[in-house]
């Protein structure tokens, strides 16, 4: 076991897989120099054929990765900025994600898309602060967002080994955090959530950067005797619905805190699932704590006001305990 930062854990997972499997290659802007940290040193270790800087051609290099995957490579594509998925949107959702089915199962597209430093981070402004995973979820792209270094390590392994496209979000606000990471490759399977803190009163579904927020609120409310169960799906698609169901069956109350936009976001999906499948267990309105559905302003007070916070989560939890919509 070594205590690694989240970003180091991603790098270790990538490196371990590259050692284990020759077909793993890395593509992206400035991956040779390792501008984003995940790929530092890999060019030197694995050479020019396996670690390639790309031009600023997101649609082009995502399509390139698809093609390489079709004939046996396992490309890991790093998006330097979260919203760069938009440039390559057709290549991801209309090509890579549909290729297997369209080909009648003849082709597979084992590509991993890594979103480096995703989400907002103190002044990145409207075009660099998105957390665009709901777009991918809607498109049916497998998507994970680890919250801790150990999960970052284990989910990165699974993402690379998966035979479908998998998106991995590495949120800016947490990728400096540390955790114990096993020395031996230990994959965390897709679709298996994790209780971050057990509790019997309210289930709080959180993911990625909202995990520390949820834990903070849980600590605070525990002092009042209110026990939150902080439940981390880790993988947003596939989603461990059974795990959510187990928790909500116990608590009867559900709040979802999520760092993406509100409308048609991940929180909406979890709330909708609960409204259908867990209705009989719910004793109070489901709470959605999300972004404010407005582009993120540069100015810090406005950025903070648009993001989900401990205060809004606490308010929502008190509302659900009082049995009212927030």
């Amino acid at each position, binding site marked *: 076991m070594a205590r690694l930062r989240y970003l180091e854990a991603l790098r270790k997972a990538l490196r371990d897989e590259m050692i284990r499997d020759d077909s793993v290659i890395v593509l992206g802007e400035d991956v040779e120099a390792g501008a984003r940290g995940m790929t530092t040193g890999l060019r030197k270790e694995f050479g020019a*054929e396996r670690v*390639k800087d*790309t*031009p600023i*051609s997101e*649609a*082009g*290099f*995502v*399509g*390139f*990765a*698809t*093609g*390489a*995957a*079709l*004939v*046996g*490579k396992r*490309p890991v594509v790093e998006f330097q900025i979260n919203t760069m998925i938009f440039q390559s949107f*057709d*290549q991801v959702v*209309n*090509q890579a994600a549909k*290729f*297997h*089915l*369209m*080909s*009648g*199962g*003849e*082709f*597979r*597209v*084992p590509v991993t898309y890594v979103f480096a430093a995703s989400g907002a981070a103190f002044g990145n402004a409207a075009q660099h602060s998105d957390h665009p995973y709901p777009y991918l979820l809607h498109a*049916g792209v*497998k998507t994970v967002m680890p919250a801790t270094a150990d999960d970052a390590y284990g989910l990165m392994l699974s993402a690379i080994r*998966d*035979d*479908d496209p998998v998106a991995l979000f590495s949120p800016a606000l947490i990728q400096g955090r540390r955790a114990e990471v096993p020395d031996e490759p230990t994959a965390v399977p*897709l*679709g298996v959530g994790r209780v971050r803190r057990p509790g019997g009163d309210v289930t709080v579904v959180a993911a990625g950067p909202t995990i520390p927020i949820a834990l903070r609120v849980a600590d605070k409310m525990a002092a009042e005797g209110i026990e939150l169960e902080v439940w981390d799906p880790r*993988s947003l*698609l*596939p*989603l*461990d*619905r*059974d795990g959510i169901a187990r928790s909500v069956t116990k608590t009867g109350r559900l709040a979802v805190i999520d760092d993406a936009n509100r409308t048609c976001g991940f929180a909406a*999906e979890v709330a909708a*699932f609960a409204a259908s*499948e867990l209705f009989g267990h719910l004793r109070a309105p489901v709470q959605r704590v999300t972004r404010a559905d407005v582009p993120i302003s540069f100015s810090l007070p406005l950025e903070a006001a648009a993001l989900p916070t401990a205060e809004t989560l606490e308010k929502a939890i008190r509302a659900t305990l009082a049995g009212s919509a927030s």
Partner: protein
Amino acid sequence: MSRRGANGAIGLEPELAISLYRTMRLVRRFEETCVDLVKDNEIAAVVHESIGQEAVAAGVTAALGARDYLTSTHRGHGHILGRGADPTRVMAELMGRTTGTNRGRGGSMHVGAPDLGILGANGIVGAGTPIAVGATWAARTDGGDSVCAAFFGDGAINQGVVHEAMNLAVIWDVPVIFCCENNLYAVTTSLSDMTGVPIIERAGGVGMPVTSVDGMDPGAVHDAMVEATARGRRDGTPSFIEFRTYRYSGHHTAEAATGVDYRSDAEMESWRRRDPLVTWPERLAAGGILAAGGKEAIDAEVEALIAESVRFARNSPWPEPAEVLDLAYAGGAGDGFPATTWGGT
């Protein structure tokens, strides 16, 4: 690849010259049959006929080797059949049957075949080009000499991703032959309104060898491809070839119903006079390559094959509704995918 023999005007090995005719005939009759099947609702939606453009498909695919790749377009039957896909399985695909190349999941615009290096036809203009570059690059990392024919139309030249793909091929030495079928139109719009310069200048500006050839002459098409593939195999150079051609039909089988009108009769007539299905066998006959009755024999053989394709497709089973989720993911759509509880079946 067969290079020029000593046959005067034609200049190709007789066998190859004849097989080009056979391919063109197969594609023509296959598509004419498709048009009927669309009318009869035996093929769903529309098909985009390449009738008139067969010489390009035949000439390009004849120049490819066994380990080479191909990406195709919405107007791709010729590419696929030229490359050697089994017409019965392609027809079954177009009729939505489980025996189709894509088990009925793809249809006309998505035919693919790993064993033939056909990395999918594509319904999105230009989208196949970066995929072609990536696949070809990957195939060569273990020392192979694969090349790839990436098809697209004149309209695709204005898609940003095509430009990006061409640049990737240039800087990473990936021998994709960018095969631009210039049939002068993208749906109703005329190429001349949509670009300020000849199409090959656009590609030339990215830094690869470019050439423009008569796309109504399968021999000329083939020769240009032979040159480009040889260069590509040798030193990884990509190429861009403009094939000047024409589609005799509308953009697709439903065009007539929309009432659009954008081509003059004179223009259409002038291109019809150059129909490779007529001119090529005439040249072969004149050059003594195709003996009396030779054409008719090929035509009859093609006819039988088409009839068999339709018969095979009609007799093939439809997919079952219950299979709807089976190919959503390579590992199947298990627990955790909303699909499994969406309640449909």
